[in-house]
């Protein structure tokens, strides 16, 4: 057990994986200086430039080369800096990484982890603040992970490297400094975490929104509404059983995510639960607007504990 922040936790997970398996390498812009969020700090010193590879500003080729490396037997962990720039590598992610194994009839696998920090980043405006987990969940072949705590960032990164599939790994741009206890326990892909038990309503969320959701659930308790909170952690495959189970018990599902509500991944969860159980469902997500720069505009795009609380109480 050690007290680490979210960036350090990931870094130590990666370091362990690199120590255990020489096929694991890390690459991306500025990783040699530790990455712009410190999430690769010290790795160059430990593993050298052969395995911690600085790259040009060439997102297409960073991702495409990772596919080639994986097909040739390595396990690359590649950095896209932010999910917004991964848009420059979408062919490589969707047409190549996700489909190669299938198209080639099982010849070759594309075991790689593509780290692309997502979410609103204070004062960074529309091109640095997107949440695109729903996109990747829609693409056959991809695994999608969104850790919300240092412990999960440690454990899920290790699990992602180990799984052998192409993993879209969505750290949150505003969690880097968050600290927590990090132990060596394994975190399994595809398993939600029950953060709080409750009997009136199931609240499913992930990534940075977990904090606000817990706060809102606490407050709801004080007015006699008992809210169960699940951190989904893995977006694909999502923990359908856990969500259905909880929703069946509470009879109400509220999905909350920072991503734009329209066609967000909350729609998939809500639709699935409504179809399967016929219980009542609601979604809370971002408005369908680009994230603005100025604080009052940015605030409009954010979810707050107060907003979540309101959604809970309005859900009768």
């Amino acid at each position, binding site marked *: 057990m050690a007290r680490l922040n979210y960036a350090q936790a990931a870094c130590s997970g990666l370091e362990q994986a690199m120590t255990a398996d020489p096929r694991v390498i890390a690459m991306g812009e500025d990783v040699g200086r530790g990455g712009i969020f410190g999430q690769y700090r010290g790795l160059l010193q430990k593993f050298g430039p052969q395995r911690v590879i600085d790259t040009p500003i*060439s997102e297409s080729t960073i991702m495409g080369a990772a596919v080639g490396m994986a097909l040739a037997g390595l396990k690359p962990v590649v950095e896209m800096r932010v999910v917004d720039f991964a848009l420059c590598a979408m062919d490589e992610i969707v047409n190549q990484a996700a489909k190669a194994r299938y198209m080639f009839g099982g010849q070759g696998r594309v075991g790689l982890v593509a780290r692309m920090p997502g979410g609103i980043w*204070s004062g960074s405006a529309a091109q640095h603040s997107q949440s695109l987990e729903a996109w990747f969940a829609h693409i056959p072949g991809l695994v999608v992970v969104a850790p919300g705590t240092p412990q999960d960032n440690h454990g899920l990164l290790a699990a992602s490297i180990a799984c052998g599939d192409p993993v879209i790994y969505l750290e949150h741009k505003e969690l880097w400094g968050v600290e927590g206890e990090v132990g060596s326990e394994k975190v399994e892909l595809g398993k939600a975490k029950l953060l709080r038990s409750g009997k009136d309503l199931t609240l499913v969320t992930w990534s940075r929104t977990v904090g606000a959701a817990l706060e809102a659930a606490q407050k709801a308790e004080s007015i006699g509404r008992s809210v169960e909170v699940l951190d989904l952690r893995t977006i694909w495959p999502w923990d359908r059983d856990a969500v259905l189970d909880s929703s069946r018990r509470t009879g109400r599902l509220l999905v909350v995510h920072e991503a734009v509500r329209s066609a967000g991944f909350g729609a998939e969860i809500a639709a699935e639960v409504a179809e399967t159980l016929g219980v009542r469902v609601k979604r809370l997500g971002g408005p369908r607007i680009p994230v*603005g720069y100025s604080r009052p505009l940015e605030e409009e795009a954010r979810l707050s504990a107060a907003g979540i609380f309101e959604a809970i109480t309005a859900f009768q």
Partner: protein
Amino acid sequence: MKGASQNPTERGLALYRSMARIRAFEDAAEEASKGGVSAFGAALSQDVMVRGPLHLSTGQEAVPAGVCANLFRTDMITSTHRGHGHTLAKGASMEKMMCELFGRATGFNGGKGGSMHIADFSVGMLGANGVVAAGIPIAVGAAHAVRIRSGKEIVACFFGDGAINRGPFLEGLNWAAIHKLPLLFVCEDNRWSATTATSAMTAGPGALARAQSVGVDGLAVDGNDVFAVDAAAGSLLATIRAGGGPKFLHAVTYRFKGHVSVDPATYRDGQEVARALENDPMPFAEAKIGAIEAKRIRDEAHAEVKRVVEVATAAPWPKSDSAYTDIQDTGAGRWLA
């Protein structure tokens, strides 16, 4: 901006003024941004004036000043994440830019864009861009539009040395050459891409050779010598305006500050930085126009920026409702239920 006198002394003063205004602006913006970025895991201070990553062009002033001195107001430019200099040099209002950095309703973008998306269409500044090299295809399109409507404008496209390793560089230059578009590509080479020395990531004989290999010829110039930049840009633009097709200007300069305003840039060699500071384009130009005139111009710039900071500090915030406008006409709205 073009239209300034061709009298050599007056031109020199105008160039220096353009640079001095940029330097003063960047210094003030830097000051106002302290604590304003959450990069490197640092927390974001709540009461900072300029929030988010702020990319300063301090030390690089000679490039926008020299290039834009050869542009008309109707000419267009595209810019990068490091776009304050381009914007000012193209003739945009310093006040509206500062207001935008302060996130105010009176800024160019009404607070929606901030530094990384600063734009002033009224002077043909078609926008900074948060994505490296993304301005290149946009500039190509703008120049192609000019060609289609048989216009006389030209477009200048600014980008950094790091951008020449992204695909759109190849695609955009090739396109411009095929169609002989009225377009000046300006590679503002400050030798660094964030924390990485660009030279370590860039193979081959350099930016200009890359341009030539896709049919775009040009010049390399000392980007710290505003007079040299002015002359080179002037001669390339004359060719472009005469229908000579796209040209390339490779201007070597240096990024005095960190990648963003809060980056201490400890990854750089102290000697390299010291040498670069000796090549500060400001004293270099001052030596040519004289210390007295230079000081007067700098004082004016400081006074202007002081006023502008005051205006920005007092300016109104955007109404939160405005978060929902300017998105799209068809299918607009919050879509929250």
